């Protein structure tokens, strides 16, 4: 609450004071230390970029991160009987049952990691991959799984109760950017009184739709006309907020008015132009089957980070919800998705960082790839796989250990197994743990954004 009486502390102020007071009471001043860490990392984080990818529909982890190529228990592996293998480059037949073949496991030389053929071009980057298996989802509902994976909390009613990871990172490290968080069909959520409205994700369905929105007709206004109006509106919003009992929305609008002039430049129109992005980044295979056209999202991420205009780019790559005969394309779809990521990594490797002299973008870009859950180990009557409460995730980040797998599943039913003693119990890793670990890698106190979850230091470098 923002009081009308300047002498009264605001509700937020009070909460802050309360939190500080409580922190001071904690043994060893843990919370204070976290705040101090946050401060010290806050500056360090301003040169970092984030890409969050949602593999929409629920992927089959047995085709890439947690590969299975033999029958065991409930497991009916991907095989020539249920999968179109023709276009899957890394599929090498391994005899399973007479004429039916599964795939050979892929173990890069000198690595402990083992993949299925869905990993596609990302296999070449195995030394950077931090694979999390046996991620306990406790849900097989799309909306709930999506929300749980990106916010660390299950839905309540149909509402998200916490910000999604991209919102958290934008709020923490991105407010000074022209676009703190661009969200392309990514399941972003923004909730919490402590967030800055500039961190509201820019929800976009297609990159190419935006160029027009950002263009202005010079034949109708002089330079400065719109600026004058925008300045007036920012003042109006601020004034209204100051007169309001609860002015967060209006204060947020004031901030957003102020950020508008930075968005309206020809440079921005090029950035959000589908054709120009494709021309600038021909290395992506936009014609690839399934999600090929969505590769433009990756091209956008690369271009926007190169120009230092964003902090977070989040997008969805979809089509994994293969309950029926469309499961035959699951391996191909995964290959297409991971090929996009591999191409993106190559681009990051060759692109100079916009603000750190001598550095490459890849040294400061952090990628998290998630899905809402995985698919059943058994093949259903329709030839597909249904929803299953296990999951895997992938982190590619200089702050996460590469060439590493964490977590595991049981051999017969592909269910998460307890892998570690957490403070509460011996249990499997969960999305809140992963998200907490991710934000902690940048010195951000996880509790600021996520009610649950525990940092898993084993995943982190240093």
């Amino acid at each position, binding site marked *: 609450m923002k009081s*009308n009486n300047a002498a009264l502390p605001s509700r937020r102020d009070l909460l802050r004071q309360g939190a500080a007071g409580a922190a001071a009471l904690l043994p060893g001043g843990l919370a204070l230390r976290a705040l101090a860490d946050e401060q010290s990392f806050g500056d360090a984080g301003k040169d970092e970029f984030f890409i969050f990818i949602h593999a929409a*529909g629920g992927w089959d982890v047995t085709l890439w991160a947690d590969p299975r190529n033999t029958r065991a*228990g409930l497991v009916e592996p991907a095989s020539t009987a249920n999968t179109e293998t023709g276009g899957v480059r890394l599929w090498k037949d391994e005899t399973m049952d007479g004429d039916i073949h599964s795939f050979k496991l892929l173990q890069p030389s000198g690595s402990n990691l083992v993949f299925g053929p869905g990993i596609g071009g990302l296999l070449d980057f195995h030394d950077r991959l931090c694979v999390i298996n046996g991620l*306990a989802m*406790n*849900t097989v*509902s799309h909306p*709930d799984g999506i929300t749980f994976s990106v916010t660390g909390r*299950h*839905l*309540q*009613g*149909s*509402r998200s109760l916490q910000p999604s990871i991209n919102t958290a990172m934008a709020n923490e490290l991105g407010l000074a950017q022209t676009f703190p968080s661009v969200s392309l069909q990514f399941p972003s959520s923004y909730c919490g009184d402590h967030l800055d409205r500039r961190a509201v994700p820019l929800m976009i369905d297609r990159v190419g739709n935006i160029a027009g929105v950002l263009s202005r007709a010079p034949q109708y206004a002089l330079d400065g006309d719109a600026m004058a109006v925008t300045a007036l509106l920012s003042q109006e919003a601020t004034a*209204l907020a*100051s*007169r*309001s*009992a*609860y*002015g967060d929305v209006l204060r947020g609008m004031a901030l957003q008015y102020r950020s508008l002039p930075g968005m309206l430049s020809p440079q921005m129109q090029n950035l959000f132009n589908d054709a120009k992005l494709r021309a600038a980044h021909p290395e992506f295979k936009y014609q690839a089957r399934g999600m090929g056209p969505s590769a433009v999202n990756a091209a956008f991420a690369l271009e926007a980070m190169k120009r230092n205009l964003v902090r977070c780019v989040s997008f969805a790559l*979809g*089509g994994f*919800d293969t*309950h*029926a005969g*469309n499961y035959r394309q699951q391996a191909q779809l995964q290959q297409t998705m991971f090929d996009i990521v591999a191409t993106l990594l190559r681009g990051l490797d060759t692109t100079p960082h916009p603000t750190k002299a001598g550095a490459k973008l890849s040294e400061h870009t952090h990628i998290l790839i998630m899905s809402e859950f995985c698919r059943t180990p058994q093949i259903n*009557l*329709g030839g597909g796989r*249904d929803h299953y*409460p296990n999951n895997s995730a992938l982190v590619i980040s200089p702050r996460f250990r590469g060439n590493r797998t964490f977590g595991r599943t*049981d051999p*017969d*039913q592909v*269910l*998460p197994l*307890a892998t570690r003693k957490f403070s509460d119990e011996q*249990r*499997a890793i969960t999305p809140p743990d992963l998200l907490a670990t991710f934000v902690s890698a940048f010195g951000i106190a996880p509790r600021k954004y996520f009610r649950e979850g525990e940092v898993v230091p084993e995943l982190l470098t240093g």
Partner: protein
Amino acid sequence: MRAWGLAGLLGVAALCGHAGQAPAQGANPAAARTLDDYRHFRALSIDLLGRTPTRQELTDFERPDFKQEAWIDKRLTGPGYPERLARIYMDALRLEVGPAFAYTPASVILRRQLVKGPEGEELYVYYRQGQRRRRDVTDGEFCLSQAETGLSFPLAGIAVGESKPVPQQILDERTVVVRPWWLYRDFEAPHATVRLPTEGKNADPLFVPVDELLRDPDKSPTIEVRVCREEAQTADVGALFSSGRTPAPAKAPKPGAPTADLPRGRFRPYPADDAYAKAHVGDPISCRSAGALTMSADCGCGPGLRHCLPGDSGTNNPRAFSLPTRLPLGLDLPLGSTPQTVSDWYKFWWTQEAARFLGYLFSADRDFREVLAAHYSFVNGPLAAFYRTGAPASCCDREKAFGMIESTEPLFDPKALPTDLAPFDTRTWKMVPDRGAHAAGLVTMPVFLAKYASRRSRAAALYTTFLCRNFVAGKEELTPSQEPNLTVRPGCASCHATLEPLAAYFSRVEEANWTFLPAWRFPLRNLTCKKNAQGRLPGFCNVFYDGDFSDATAGVLRGAYASLDHAAAGAAGAAVALGDAPEFAACAVQRVTSSFLGRPLTSDDDDLLTALGSEFRRNGLRMRPLVRAILLSDAYRRSNNISSAIWRRGDHE
């Protein structure tokens, strides 16, 4: 607070009929209006008209004789009101089918191939994939052979080879020309002449064949289309057909290449004669059943091809019509259109049926339980065509083993359809008072059944939307287990103990489909599908009967294990059960109140919800009195914080 009762909660003045009246009237009535009055009126306009007030409406509002309650009552019967309420439930159910679901039934889609005519001119020939023909070389294939066209179509209808002119005699033997329904209003006449306008003010913006369907290969306007002769047949009933050929060897040659193993001139093995058709050769079969395509050589697309949808290529899901990709303001105010596929045509109209149904439910102020239970619905031309031929086309390949060759008890009985709707008539909507015995509100509409394809997802969607409850598992560890019964399995039971019995209501509606499995064909406990000595079901039973819950005496219908009673009651039973649940009314009140107040509700709102709930129930679960009470409540009036009192204080401080 609780003791205040309804009057206190909703604003005493409102109930007394004063709250909406203008405050003290004076010489300058406009001056008497406070900022709060204006804001309240603006909010009412937004919620009841779907837009902010016009200058004229403001002027009317400022008149001394303005009666706010009367104004509200009038708008509650206007077009903005049902749209406002429908938005709440469309947001909750998201009733549009996503891109992963494509509906492309072979029996309904007329694909086309480009061949050369006698003079070498290019021409399109329309055909159905899988069409049975009496000529061996083209049985189940395009009606012109490779020898006749120079082309073959081994993969998804994509032509391979070098096209050569087809002699006129062959063309006339194998094909006919038709003036089809997508070009002519009087398509059923022997010589149709009345063109459907595709441009100008008489054109229907929601019936726009893609340009490729309106032009011949030389870009001239299409006057008539050439169709394979079998597809152009007009009979309603055909005879079951069997070629009598020897079945293909167990290891049939791979299709796509002419090998020595393939019959001469063919690129695929002969289509197998259906076992049922072989056993019943000559018996009648409805040409509107999907099986007619592969079990009869006498069935086509009907007069003017009215029972089929045209596509602009031979691909699996060809483009057909231009449609708005989104329709945020409803059918009457479409945005721009883009070319869409055949499957999108169906999906678009499925959504419109649900929207029309909700619109009626709210505008006629029906008992809200009808959202789940109503037998009535609404169709226009495209939907009538779908229910007549498109919907049955999803049946009955697997069902034949149980003696079901056509959908005998469809969720929407085609006999209930109006007979005077042409497939192109998008503007005329007609009420169908009773879709059939198994119909149940939104629950049995294709859009719901396709969007929520599995029994469990259907149950979960209803549970969440209409009981405001969620399935969120506890933190119980999910350990490997052989227990197939999820209602008791550790780690699953916390959700599935509720979900499985609810899902059982959908046991008789196929997953990813709308085919109803009648009890006389598919008993819940089927003695024929009992387990054998090896503990297995007969092979043909597996699709419909669940080995995990069957025994040596009977097979149990899939999905029914958690509650045979629920399975017997069907989707309509779910509607009754949910509608009677105490949470149903409370959930409706909660959803609508939260939407109109524009915020999530908290425990502070409990008393308000209780009062509104009483009002809702007292009025027979009709929404209009509920919404009226919300609009007149103090909570609605103060549902944002910019108060004129605060402003004035701020201005003077």
